[in-house]
C-alpha cells in the first residue's frame, strides 16, 4: 500500500463515518442516471401534471419551461422524458443542451439522430457533422479496376466532415423516418436555450417557427430574465404551455434532502418525514437550517450539500449538528467564489452587492453605477446574472423591480467585508 492509497481509504472512511457510501449531491442532473433521478426528483407535482396533460393530446405540442438559473429546469425536463420513456415506449425522446453556435434545426437534428443508432441515414447525418457515432461510418464507392478485367473493386474511405447543409429538410426527413418506428411521436427537449446570447436566440426562435410548429413535440427551457421574457410576450402563440418553475418550499426541500441522502445512506432507507433517521447524518434542526440556506433552489441545494458533506467528512464528524453545519457552511462562500473565477468587473459588482445588501433597478443610483464604468442598470444585469449562476447572488421575488441580493451564507472566519 502506498501513502496515496492510505489517503484514499481514509477519505472513503470519512464519508462512511457519516453513514454514507458517497456524497449524493450533484449540481448537474444530466450526470444522474435515470433511476437515481427518479429517486431524487422531488415536488413539482402541479407542473408535471400540466405538462403530462399536454401529452394526452394527439396534436403535437410545444412546451416552454422557464424559471431562474439553477431552479431545476433541466431536472424537470429529464424527469418528464424519463416518465415518457416508461409510459410511452413507442415514443422517441431526445434531449440536448443547445450548443453555442448551432441553429435550432441542426440542434434538433443532432438530438434525434443520436437516439436512432440503428438508422443508417441518421448516423450518416451525425457523421457528416463530425459527431462520433457508435458504428464506424464508411462510404462505399465502386471503382472500375483495370487490373481486374471487367470486375470492380470496392473501396472504403472516410467521409469528409461537414455541417448539416439543409438542416431543416434533414430534420424533416429524419422525423419522417422516426415516425415509422415510433408511431407515438418524437419529443425533442432542448435545454439551456438562453445560456446563449439573447439576440441570437431571439433570431433563432424567429427563424425556427416552422420547425417548432412541425412534426415533433418540443420542450424548451429558458430563464425569464433572458430570451423567454421576450418570447413570452412577443412570440405569443408559439407555445401551447408556458410552465414557470419557482423556488421549492421548505417542506419540499426537506423531502428532497431525504430523497438525496437515501440514495447514498448505508443500511438506512428511512424516508419518513417525522423520523429523525430520515435526514441522517443531519440532525433534523440542522437539516431544516440547511434547507433554509438553500433557498429552495435545487442547484444551490446540491452545491451546498456537496460542500457541507465534504467538510463534515474532513472534520471526521459522524453527525451534522447545527454547530457542525455552521462550521461547514463557512467554507461554502469562499468555495463558491473560487469556483466562479470572476473577472475584475464581476468582482466589483459582487462587492457592491455585498455592501448594499441588494441591488435593484428601483434603487440603484448613478453614483453606484459610474464607478463601475456603467450608466444603466441593464448593463450590470448580465453580471448580476453571472453571479446568480455562480450562486453568489439570487433574485428576490419582486414584480415591480428586479432585485438581486447576496446568498445569505455565514461569512468565512477570515473574510473581511469590504467597506
Amino acid at each position, binding site marked *: 500500500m502506498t501513502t496515496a492509497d492510505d489517503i484514499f481509504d481514509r477519505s472513503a472512511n470519512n464519508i462512511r463515518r457519516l453513514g454514507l457510501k458517497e456524497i449524493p449531491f450533484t449540481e448537474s442532473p444530466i450526470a444522474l442516471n435515470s433511476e437515481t433521478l427518479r429517486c431524487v426528483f422531488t415536488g413539482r407535482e402541479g407542473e408535471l401534471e400540466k405538462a403530462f396533460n399536454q401529452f394526452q393530446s394527439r396534436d403535437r405540442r410545444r412546451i416552454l419551461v422557464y424559471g431562474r438559473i439553477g431552479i431545476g429546469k433541466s431536472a424537470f425536463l429529464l424527469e418528464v422524458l424519463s416518465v415518457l420513456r416508461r409510459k410511452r415506449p413507442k415514443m422517441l425522446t431526445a434531449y440536448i443542451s443547445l450548443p453555442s453556435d448551432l441553429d435550432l434545426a441542426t440542434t434538433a437534428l443532432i438530438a434525434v439522430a443520436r437516439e436512432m443508432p440503428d438508422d443508417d441515414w441518421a448516423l450518416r447525418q451525425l457523421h457528416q457533422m463530425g459527431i462520433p457515432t457508435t458504428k464506424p461510418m464508411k462510404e462505399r464507392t465502386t471503382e472500375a479496376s483495370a487490373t481486374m478485367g471487367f470486375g470492380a473493386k470496392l473501396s472504403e474511405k472516410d467521409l469528409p466532415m461537414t455541417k448539416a447543409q439543409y438542416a431543416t429538410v434533414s430534420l424533416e426527413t429524419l422525423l419522417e423516418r422516426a415516425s415509422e418506428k415510433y408511431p407515438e411521436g418524437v419529443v425533442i427537449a432542448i435545454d439551456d436555450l438562453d445560456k446563449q446570447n439573447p439576440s441570437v436566440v431571439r433570431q433563432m426562435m424567429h427563424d425556427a417557427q416552422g420547425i417548432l410548429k412541425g412534426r415533433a413535440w418540443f420542450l424548451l427551457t429558458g430563464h425569464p430574465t433572458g430570451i423567454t421574457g421576450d418570447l413570452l*410576450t412577443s412570440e405569443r402563440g408559439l407555445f401551447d404551455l408556458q410552465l414557470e418553475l419557482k423556488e421549492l418550499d421548505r417542506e419540499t426541500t426537506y423531502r428532497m434532502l431525504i430523497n438525496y441522502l437515501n440514495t447514498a445512506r448505508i443500511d438506512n432507507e428511512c424516508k419518513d418525514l417525522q423520523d429523525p433517521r430520515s435526514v441522517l447524518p443531519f440532525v433534523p434542526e440542522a437539516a431544516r437550517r440547511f434547507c433554509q440556506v438553500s433557498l429552495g433552489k435545487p442547484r444551490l441545494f446540491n452545491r451546498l450539500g456537496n460542500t457541507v458533506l465534504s467538510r463534515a467528512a474532513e472534520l471526521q464528524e459522524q453527525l451534522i449538528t447545527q454547530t457542525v453545519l455552521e462550521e461547514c457552511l463557512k467554507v461554502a462562500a469562499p468555495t463558491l467564489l473560487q469556483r466562479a473565477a470572476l473577472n475584475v468587473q464581476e468582482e466589483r459588482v459582487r462587492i457592491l452587492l455585498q455592501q448594499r445588501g441588494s441591488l435593484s*433597478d428601483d434603487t440603484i443610483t448613478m453614483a453606484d453605477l459610474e464607478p463601475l464604468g456603467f450608466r444603466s442598470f441593464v448593463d450590470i444585469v448580465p453580471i448580476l446574472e453571472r453571479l446568480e449562476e455562480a450562486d453568489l447572488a439570487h433574485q428576490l421575488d419582486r414584480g415591480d423591480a428586479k432585485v438581486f441580493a447576496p446568498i445569505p451564507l455565514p461569512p468565512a472566519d477570515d473574510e473581511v467585508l469590504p467597506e
Partner: protein
Amino acid sequence: MGKKGFGQSEPPTRQAKKFLLAFMRCMAETQEDRDRVHNFFKSHQAQLNESLLEALPLVVQKLTPEREEIAPFLLTFGNSIQQFPLGDRMLNLELSIAAYQECLKIYTRENFPQDWAGVQNNLGIAYHARIKGERAENLERSIGFHQQALQVYTREHFPEKWARAQNNLGNAYGDRIEGERSENLERSIVAYQQAMQVYTREHFLKKWAMAQNNLGNTYRERIKGDRGENLEQSIVAYQQALQVYTREHFPEKWAGSQNNLGIAYRERIKGERAENLERAIAAYQQALQVRTREHFPQDWAMTQNNLGTAYGERIKGERGENLEQAIAFYQQAAKVFSRDAFPQQWAKNQSDLAETLMKRASLTNKIDDLDSAITLLKASLEVAASGTPYFIDSQYRLGNAFSRYYEYTQNPADLQQALQAYKIALEAIDPEHYDRKQIWQALPTTQSILGSRLVRDGRWQEGLQLLLNSINQLSRGDDFYAHANALFQTGKAHEFLSDWDNARLYYRDALRLYEHLKDELGIAQSRAGLGGVLVSQGYLEKGLAELAKAQEIYQHLQKPNKAAELDRLYQLAKRAWEQQLSNEVYV
C-alpha cells in the same frame, strides 16, 4: 485616339503643327514671360482642343529631325498650359501630361537624368491636379512620379531640387486617398519638414514661405495629435508664410495664404468661436481683393465657397441673413466650379450648399430645402471620389438630411437611407479621425429612432435589435442624451410588446440618466412611461405616484397637452386603485 481604317484618317496634324510652331516662336520672342505666354494661349484658345491633344504625339513624331531641340519647348508648353487659368481645365491638364510624356521619350533617364527627373516632377504635379481618370489612382501615380524624381534628385547632389520634390511629395501625400489618412498626413508633414531643411528662411525665403503654407495645410487636417493644438500650429505656419508673402510683392501667394488662414480660423477650437469666424471672413475678403473672378476664376470660386461655409456657421449677425448670404456665395462659386471642369470642387460646393439648405430648413421648417439638399448631396456623391474627406462629409450630411426628412415624412425608409449613409461614412473615415466620433454617434442615435419606429410598425424583431445595438454603442460613447433617449425608446418598444419587466427596467434606466442630466422633459417622459407600466402590472399605487410626478413636470414645462393626455391614464388608474382599496375593505 481617332479611329483608323476605311474612310477614317489620322487626326489632322497640320493645325496642331502650326499651333506648336507658333508657340515655339512666341517662346523665343517672349523669353518665356508668363503673362505673355498666357496671352498667347488666350488668343489661341480655340485651338486648345481635343484635336490638339490627339495630334500632339504625331506632330512630335513628325518633327523627328529636331526632336532634341523640341524637348525644352514641350516642357515649357506642359508647364505653361498647366498653369493657364482659363479654358477647359481638364483638357489643359491632359495637354500638359501629353507634352510631358512626349518629352520623356526624348529625355530618357540614361541620357538626360536631370531632365528626366525634372519631367517626373512635373508629371507628379500634373497627375496630382488631374481631373480625368480615377482620383485615387492619379494620386498614386503622382506619388510614384515624385519618388522617381527623388531617385535622381538626391539631397547630396541636388539639394534644392530634392527639397522641391519633397515638398511636392508632401502635397501628394496630403491628398492621398489610398491607405490610412492619418498616416498619409504624417508622411506629408515629414516630407515638408525634409524640404524645410533646405528651404530655410535665410537662403530660400520664398520657398520657405511656400513650405510653411503647405505645412499649415497639413497641420490643419492632421488627425494624429491634439486637434486644437494642430490648428494653432497651422495658424502659426500661415502667419509665418504671410511674413514673406506680402500683398505688395507676392499678391497671389498672399491671397492664397489669407484664404488658408481663413479656413484655419473657421475650424479653430481655441478662442472665442464667434470671433474666430469673423477673423475667417475678414481673411477671405482680403484674399478676394486679389483673387478676382476675371483673373483667377478657380481661386476666386474657392474663396467664395469658403465664405459660404463661414457665413453658414456665423454666430454674429442675423442667422437667417447669414444663411442667405452663404447660399449666395455657394451659388457664385458654382458659376466656376462646373461639374465637367472641376468635378471634385463642384461636388464639395454642392455638398456645402446642401448643408446650408439643411440649416435653413431647421430655421424655416420647410421641407423643400431638405428635398433640395438630398438631391444636391446625391448628385455630389455621384462625383466625389470615394474615400475623400468630401465624400465622407457628404455621406454624413446625407445621413443627417434623411434623418431630418423622416421627421416630416415619418417614412422609415428615410431612416434606413440615413443609416446606410452613416455606415458608408463610418467605413470610409480614418479610425482616428476627429470627426469620426460625430458620425459614430449619429449611427446609434438613428438606429434607436428607426428601431422604435419599426417596433411600432410591428417589425419588432428588427426594431428591437436596432435599439439594443444602439444602446450597446451609446453606452460606450459620451453622448449621454442620445444614450438616455435610446434607453427610453427601448422602454417604449418593450411596453409596446407588453414586455412589462423589460419596459420597466429601461424606463428606470432612462429616468436615472435624465435625472443625472437634469433633463426635465426626459424625466417627465420616463416617469410617464414607468407609471404606465407599473399600472399595467397592477402596481397601482407606485404607478400613480410616477404619473403624478410626470404630470407635475409637464405642467411646469408648460406642456398642457401632455399633462392632459397623462391625466386620462391617471384618472383611470386612480379609479382602479380606489376600487381595489374598497374591495380590500369589503373583504
